[in-house]
């Protein structure tokens, strides 16, 4: 395999500046996408530097200051800009650290899904026959069970915590990646250049990684952006059902669930985590739309 190792290297090298600049030019035209990118960048910044930016520790409880409203509502305390939660923890700090948790889950799911999805999808496309049937049937199985029910079942088996949330959400979302890669690979395989490469005796592995995969990258990137937002939503859904990150981790979904009993009496405690989820997911989706249009205008989202 040494020849393969040598040959795969250029494939992962950065694309020449030409297409990249072209891509950026196309992306820039979509104002929504730029806005989305800016918001995602901001949230990422907050998440990374939460420990510097947040006014307090997300788990520090200020006794006697619980359930304070945000600054524009009467009865608020200027020290807690967005108020406090049920046990007196600063809402703003928790939201900031929560961004870290949510993005960590989302990105981890995305990376793992990409790697596993690409491997399985390519394998199905190339080996065909039994391997293809098995992989596709397993993906059908996963898709046949309502995603949330399957995720809950998986969590019930392996126990609720942050890592397992990532595992469950990855498994549930995997079929989309596998099918996408397989379909793109199959399309590419019928093209002349692949046939030519085959005829000239290029090995299977090399064919997969060097010639076919780069041509599936565009739809994959778009799928990754959508997968990121879906993963954040699903993880939040699990957190809402009490099956995500465990206390006192500030995860947006579980923050929401923790305050359900305060829904009528202190609605703002419930409003912020939900808004945080919505804004993050919306920004990622805006960005994803821009990516799609810029990379491949023919790609549609379904």
């Amino acid at each position, binding site marked *: 395999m040494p020849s393969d190792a040598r040959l795969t290297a250029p494939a992962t090298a950065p694309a020449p500046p030409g297409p990249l600049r072209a891509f950026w030019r196309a992306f820039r035209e979509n104002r929504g996408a730029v806005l989305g990118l800016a918001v995602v960048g901001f949230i990422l910044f907050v998440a990374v530097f939460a420990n510097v930016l947040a006014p307090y520790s997300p788990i520090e409880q200020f006794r006697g200051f619980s359930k304070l409203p945000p600054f524009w509502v009467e009865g608020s305390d200027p020290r807690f800009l967005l108020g406090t939660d049920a046990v007196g923890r600063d809402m703003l700090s928790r939201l900031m650290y929560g961004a870290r948790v949510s993005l960590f889950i989302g990105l981890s799911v995305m990376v793992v899904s990409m790697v596993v999805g690409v491997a399985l999808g390519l394998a199905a496309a190339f080996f065909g026959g039994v391997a293809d049937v098995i992989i596709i049937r397993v993906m059908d199985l996963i898709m046949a*069970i309502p995603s949330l029910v399957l995720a809950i079942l998986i969590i019930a088996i392996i126990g609720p915590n942050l890592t397992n949330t990532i595992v469950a959400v990855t498994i549930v979302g995997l079929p989309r990646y596998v099918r996408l890669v397989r379909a793109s690979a199959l399309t590419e395989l019928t093209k002349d250049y692949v046939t030519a490469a085959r005829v000239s005796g290029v090995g299977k592995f090399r064919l997969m990684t060097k010639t076919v995969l780069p041509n599936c990258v565009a739809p994959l990137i778009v799928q990754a952006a959508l997968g990121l937002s879906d993963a954040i939503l699903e993880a939040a859904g699990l957190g809402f059902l009490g099956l995500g990150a465990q206390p006192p981790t500030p995860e947006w979904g579980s923050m929401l669930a923790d305050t359900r009993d305060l829904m009528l009496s202190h609605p703002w405690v419930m409003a912020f985590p939900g808004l945080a989820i919505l804004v993050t997911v919306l920004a990622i989706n805006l960005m994803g739309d821009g990516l799609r249009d810029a990379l491949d205008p023919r790609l549609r989202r*379904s």
Partner: protein
Amino acid sequence: MIRFFLKRLALTIPTFIALMFITFVMLRLVPGDPIEVRRGERGISPERLAQLRHDMGLDQPVWKQFLDYANALLHGDFGTSIVSKSPVLHEFLTLFPATLELTITAMLFAIVLGIPAGVIAASRRGGVYDQTLMGLALTGYSMPIFWWGLILVLVMSNTLHLTPVSGRVDLIKFYYQPVTGFMLIDSLLSGQEGAFMDAVRHLILPMIVLGTVPLAVIARMTRSSMLEVLEEDYVRTARAKGLSWTRIVGVHALRNALIPVVTVIGLQVGGLLAGAVLTETIFSWPGVGKWLIESINRRDYPALQGGIMLIATIVILVNLFIDMLYGLINPRIRHAK
């Protein structure tokens, strides 16, 4: 055509068997015990636990339990719920109409609003309407629906008192037995004045919550599909011939643009059932989604197993149906596979 159908149907059989096996094994891997979980603080003595497990056949080796289960299933027996002691199939069939009513109305809500929104956006491409509608659609698509549900309850029910918080109909005011299981139909059959409107009021919020994501998807899909069609030569020809814009969009283009939209609608079925789980939980809607969650919490293996099998069957059959539809529209697919 029939051969194609039968072939596809045959292909689903291994999927079913695998599904049965995997759910069975998964359920046995879940820690916890259907007997233990129903006990209060007092718990249960090991001797009695062993006795009860024996009575329920839970002490048999898993492979034997599986064979028994598969055998019963072949005879159409989905087992008996541990909690309610009633047959799983019966339980499912009593609850399923509630879920079906919710999902169908949510889908109708999404279609009725989504397609016009997409058409308007496409015909005013780049304009204020387009941007507003698509902005809303993307927001809907990004919505955490559990939060959306709570916010709607807070605003519509608790602040404005427009809609009830949960349930399907006010059974205190209106007293009738379910006939079809569909509240909208049953309330009409009951002949009681106001019952139908009451059922509608109960349905509105869950319908909106569940329909939000499909609505967004359909609107976006209609728009992009429409835009593509509007580029086609025949549309230009029609325009050149002086046909009114409304007529071109509403009649000629729409018909063609709808084909991909129909498939997208079909693809939403799986997602709808997943969304129903959360929606039913928030609104205490007595459907299968809520029932499945409760069954997980109670470790009610037979109910869970049967429920998952039945839901999966529906999803698989719907997918098969969509494939068939594809085959009808595009004969090339038939031969490709």
